[in-house]
């Protein structure tokens, strides 16, 4: 099915009342959790996974994608008004956005972030619609050996290339792979890594790990470093952008979008790098009379560009997720496990076997984008008020939901003990700068990689060289090695 047929099919499903309702609910929830510090889209979707028992797949995924897009919009509000970015993608937005807010220009900063997000989200979604089928064509040619190598490349890029240190990133990844191994081996029926505890035979629940990492660990870390001072929430003021603001914003929006999307599509994922690059680009390209605003009173270009890059990259992440079944962010990994709980395997076959679902999902992304820009600009006062929820009750509430997300599913105290134990590990991971996303990605992608590896070895009759003699696989493994050692070799060369 080509993109136009797909989209017309998708819109015919997406514009039904119930699906519009799911999109609206998702956008609303997503913006709220994006605004709230301490809760992100990955945690929210993990906590909402139980609805997969009751709601049909299309509705659930429209909801999840609404949350995913909404959280990107909400994140900028926190960065600008509170100067505490909730997630890595909006760190850069806080640089100029918070300075604009301090100088009474919070309104235009929020407006340029929202409209920039809309522009980028739309360009990104167009990218998904037209690039998706192309990637699927390519992906259908991959055998298990190539798939395994592709996953290895993905592992290396999400853990070793991004973040502070390859050693710590890979440690996080290995921890996730280890968690993914717990339970009964699907191919041989043998229990693995269970320490003889019967509750572990079913494996460690993904929701439990996500909640432990993103809710319990974060709360413990904040308590560890807690000191009583409330951050100042800046007033919003008028959100109208002047003629000059528009003139200074539209180019950064477009540049940010075209910079961000390819970064999202690449298996490295991540929103830090494109937002940072966009920031530096805008700083270089800004008109000379506005250069002095960077870092002093806050330059609108420094909000418009990175926010667009952030949203376009987020949209791009959906391309490998939907076409290859490769999650490159924690949120995408949780969405992948939602697909699995419906018995659907994301990957190239998804576009053929579930074409109505996929295209409805993509059409809903356009709908969500329009809803978000309409919802966000007039309601910005409401979102600013959410920021004033006092910390003690906010974190106490988050932990109540953490209990629901784990104990609620299994009614097992063992799960609660496991939740809090992994939460403590996560607290120390945060303190010692180990990234958490590779844990979730490793845990979900690990078993799939093992399966692909064993399939490939069955086909090659146990010949391990199949991974390097098949050209496609060899190229992918080569890229993985390059990504792992390249930066180090380059560093050594430069030092001479």
């Amino acid at each position, binding site marked *: 099915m080509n993109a136009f047929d797909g989209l017309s099919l998708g819109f015919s499903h997406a514009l039904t009342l119930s699906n519009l309702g799911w999109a609206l609910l998702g956008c609303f929830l997503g913006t709220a959790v994006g605004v709230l510090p301490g809760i992100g889209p990955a945690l929210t979707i993990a906590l909402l996974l139980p609805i997969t028992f*009751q709601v049909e797949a299309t509705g659930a995924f429209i909801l999840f994608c609404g949350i995913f897009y909404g959280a990107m919009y909400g994140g900028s509000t926190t960065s600008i008004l509170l100067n505490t970015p909730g997630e890595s993608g909006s760190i850069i937005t806080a640089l100029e956005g918070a300075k604009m807010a301090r100088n009474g220009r919070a309104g235009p900063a929020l407006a340029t972030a929202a409209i920039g997000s809309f522009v980028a989200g739309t360009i990104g979604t167009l990218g998904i619609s037209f690039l998706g089928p192309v990637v699927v064509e390519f992906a259908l040619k991959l055998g298990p050996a190539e798939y395994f190598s592709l996953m290895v490349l993905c592992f290396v890029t999400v853990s070793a290339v991004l973040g502070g240190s390859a050693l710590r990133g890979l440690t996080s990844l290995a921890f996730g792979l280890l968690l993914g*191994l717990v339970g009964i081996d699907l191919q041989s029926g043998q229990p*693995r890594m269970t320490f003889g505890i019967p509750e572990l035979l079913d494996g460690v629940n993904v929701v439990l790990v996500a909640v432990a990492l993103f809710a319990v660990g974060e*709360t413990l870390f904040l308590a*560890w470093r807690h000191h009583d001072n409330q951050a100042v929430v800046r007033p919003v003021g008028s959100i109208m952008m002047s003629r000059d603001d528009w003139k200074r914003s539209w180019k950064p929006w477009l540049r940010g979008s075209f910079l961000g999307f390819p970064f999202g599509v690449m298996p490295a994922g991540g929103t830090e790098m494109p937002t940072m690059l966009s920031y530096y680009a805008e700083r270089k390209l800004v008109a000379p009379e506005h250069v002095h605003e960077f870092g002093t009173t806050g330059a609108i270009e420094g909000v418009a560009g990175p926010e667009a890059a952030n949203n376009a990259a987020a949209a791009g992440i959906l391309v490998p997720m939907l076409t290859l079944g490769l999650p490159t962010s924690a949120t995408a990994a949780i969405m992948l496990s939602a697909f699995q709980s419906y018995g659907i395997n994301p990957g190239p076959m998804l576009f053929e076997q579930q074409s109505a679902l996929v295209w409805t999902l993509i059409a809903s992304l356009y709908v969500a984008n329009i809803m978000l820009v309409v919802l966000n600009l007039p309601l910005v006062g409401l979102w600013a008020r959410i920021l004033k929820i006092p910390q003690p009750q906010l974190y*106490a*509430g988050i932990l109540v939901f953490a209990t629901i997300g784990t104990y*609620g599913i299994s009614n097992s105290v063992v799960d609660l003990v496991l939740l809090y134990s992994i939460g403590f590990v996560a607290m120390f991971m945060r303190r*010692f700068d180990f990234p958490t996303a590779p844990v979730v990605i490793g845990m979900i992608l690990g078993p799939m990689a093992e399966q692909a590896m064993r399939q490939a070895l069955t086909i090659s009759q146990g010949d391990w060289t199949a991974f390097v003699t098949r050209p496609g696989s060899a190229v992918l493994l080569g890229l993985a090695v390059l990504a792992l050692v390249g930066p180090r070799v380059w560093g050594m060369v430069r030092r001479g």
Partner: protein
Amino acid sequence: MPEMHPPGIDRTDLKVGGFVLALGGLALWQAAEIPASPLYGQVGPKAVPYGVAAVLALLGAGLVVQALRGGWSHTLEEVREAPPTNWRALALLVAGLLANIVLIVPLGFCLAASVQFVLVAAAFGSRRLGRDAVLALVLTLTVWFGFVMLLGVNIGAGLLEGGILRLLGQELP
């Protein structure tokens, strides 16, 4: 990457490296415990666990070496500028988590989670415990009934939930 190492060993970082190394060892032991499958010829269930365990142990060793050469914590801005450990907050929070584990089976979700809520709020500096308790009960009961009624998911009923259901003349689903 040119990194400046201050002389000496970072003992806290060393503990982290040791922990990862020990985790790798634990995983190696568990990988060895997996019964070899007679059914499967090419790659059995043990290969990948051995591989992952070995990689984890190697990474642990790498972290130990890094810690012996000065560690990495001193390069983190967040650690250098961190306020001192808040033992009171941490203790109250942990007490909340333990209370939840101990109370959830005998008392049910709402009461256990409410005790946890009050302790966690106190950990983050709330001084109005009575108001927090009321807030917690309203929140937990709303959520509990929402999950039972809308999703059919039972989050551990206890004294309070059962009592309210009986008052409404309903049975637990």
